[in-house]
């Protein structure tokens, strides 16, 4: 009933500003495939899977395709040079409002942590909008069980071979996936003359 942008209180100039800022920022630094050990291991063992990499404010991020995500994460967990044995967080980002194409709408974000070297790494798997399916990493870290259930509940991304994929936060019979960007904020909108559609 009320447009999403008007509900936020944004004006058209704000929206154009957001679009123009959605360009590659100046602090984007690509990771060096030779020097950086995580990127080197992933590109050597899984050629063609890495899409891009980035170092931003001393945090490393690697984007990969979703095909071999379980093997990549298992290698990062088990390899002695990386040893990311702690899954700090598993979440998803809906890039709809950042003008992402439909084939790259969702990013599953794995925030990894190594208890031996106290280093963090972020691995992102790109998932399209249609056929939003990715393999579960439950066998690599059991901690991913509920975290993947939450991503399924709030984003609608299906995790293949998950032992118990059902809604966790929302009621069991809820329709829709609330954290998607095209899902409304909810609640009763205050009707003003500028946002009520004259029927």
């Amino acid at each position, binding site marked *: 009933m009320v447009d999403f942008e008007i509900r936020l209180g944004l004006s058209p100039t704000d929206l154009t500003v957001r679009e123009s800022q959605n360009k590659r920022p100046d602090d984007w630094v690509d990771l060096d495939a030779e020097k950086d050990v995580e990127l080197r291991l992933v590109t050597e063992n899984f050629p063609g899977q890495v899409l891009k990499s980035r170092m931003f404010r001393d945090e490393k991020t690697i984007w990969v395709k979703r095909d071999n995500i379980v093997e990549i994460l298992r290698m990062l967990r088990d390899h002695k040079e990386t040893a990311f044995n702690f899954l700090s967080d598993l979440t998803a980002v809906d890039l709809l409002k950042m003008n992402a194409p439909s084939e790259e709408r969702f990013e599953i974000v794995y925030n990894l942590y190594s208890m031996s070297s106290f280093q963090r790494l972020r691995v992102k798997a790109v998932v399209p909008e249609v056929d939003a399916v990715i393999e579960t990493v439950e066998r690599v870290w059991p901690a991913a069980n509920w975290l993947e259930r939450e991503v399924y509940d709030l984003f609608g991304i299906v995790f293949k071979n998950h032992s118990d994929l059902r809604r966790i936060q929302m009621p069991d019979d809820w329709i829709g996936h*609330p954290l998607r960007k095209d899902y409304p904020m909810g609640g009763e909108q205050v009707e003003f003359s500028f946002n009520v559609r004259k029927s």
Partner: protein
Amino acid sequence: MATTLTGESIKPDILKDIAVPRGVIIESYEQSDENEIMVVNMGPQHPSTHGVLRLVLELDGETIRKATPHIGYLHTGLEKTMENLSYYKALVVTDREDYLSNLINNLAYSLAVEKLLDVQVTPRARRLRLILNELERIASHLIWLGTHALDIGAMTIFFYTWRERDQILDLKEMMSGVRMMTSWICPGGLRGDVPEGWLYRAQKFVNNFPAKLDEYNRLLTKNPIWIERLSGIGKISGEDAIAWGMSGSSLRGSGVAWDIRKANPYTGYDEVEFDIPVGSNGDVYDRYLVRIEEMRQSIRILNQALKDVPSGPVMTSDRKIAPPPRAELDTSMESLIHHFKLFTEGYHPPVGEAYAACESGRGEKGYYVVSDGSSIPYRVKINGPSLKNLQALPKMVEGLYIADCVAIIGSIDIVLGDIDR
């Protein structure tokens, strides 16, 4: 077999078809099965589940064969709310997640946003943030101790720990006017300086607290009932705990010496000396001992931190982030414009993402903030430690009694606000 009050016996198979008249005592409908599993709901409303947690227990007698937690009863969509508020306004939402350690949530969010903005805080703000965090940790552990003891049956401890915690709440009220949801730590520094006499009062609390902690220790630690109830149950090994994503005192009770304050220090934790207590058995008693010792170490940190607090401003001088002082609004046009733009629109971090984690009373409290260049965060994921700690509960509780289950829930110290958000 069933008997009426007059003594006649009724054969069991007839009972299935008729409504039972008054005065008939049913003993059993069929042969009792030895492996009969009874499903019992330790429902969302329960005094011992520390919030709205629903545990579906499959019981064999009183032994739990399987426990399934159901969460989501406190889900209010805080992440979606934060996606609709500017960075400064989203700060007030962070208090409400782990509602027993509010300032630690504020700090984790502020650290993530400051990383995005690439802004440094002043030395006084760093030190005050450390002091507030440690006070908050003591308050959180006091609530844990009171409620845990209450669940086990030692009710007096509850009243004592609440008395101590009230002194910390009085300190927060003296500083901000609010007892719990202060939102005092904001991106850029603190929302305001502590008033005169606050540091003196904090030092007085720190001087009086160790005696009270010894009192609780004397009441509980060597108490034979306490040891009998707590030791040997809820065991989880170190490798299992890491695989299940546990963090904080629950992980340290299993022997893994990981504390974010030592591993990835923030807000000046590398300038103070303290130890990390680590358990050995991974059972409930070890986690209890770890938390008691953590309170002592917090006092040790506070004694060092309160000694020489640097003077100066508590907010960064970068006017693109920090609002100008109110007095300047009368004289300077630029300040007025900054004030207006900051409070209506907010500051614009560059496009990017940042993750920052703090050690809360429960574990690794992290915020993953994604920015798209506008004044509103694009995605905020709240990494609550209690969610992953609770996930390991079914594994810890198998084969134990319901009373042990209550003790284990208390020992992993969950807060439903962190889990459900």
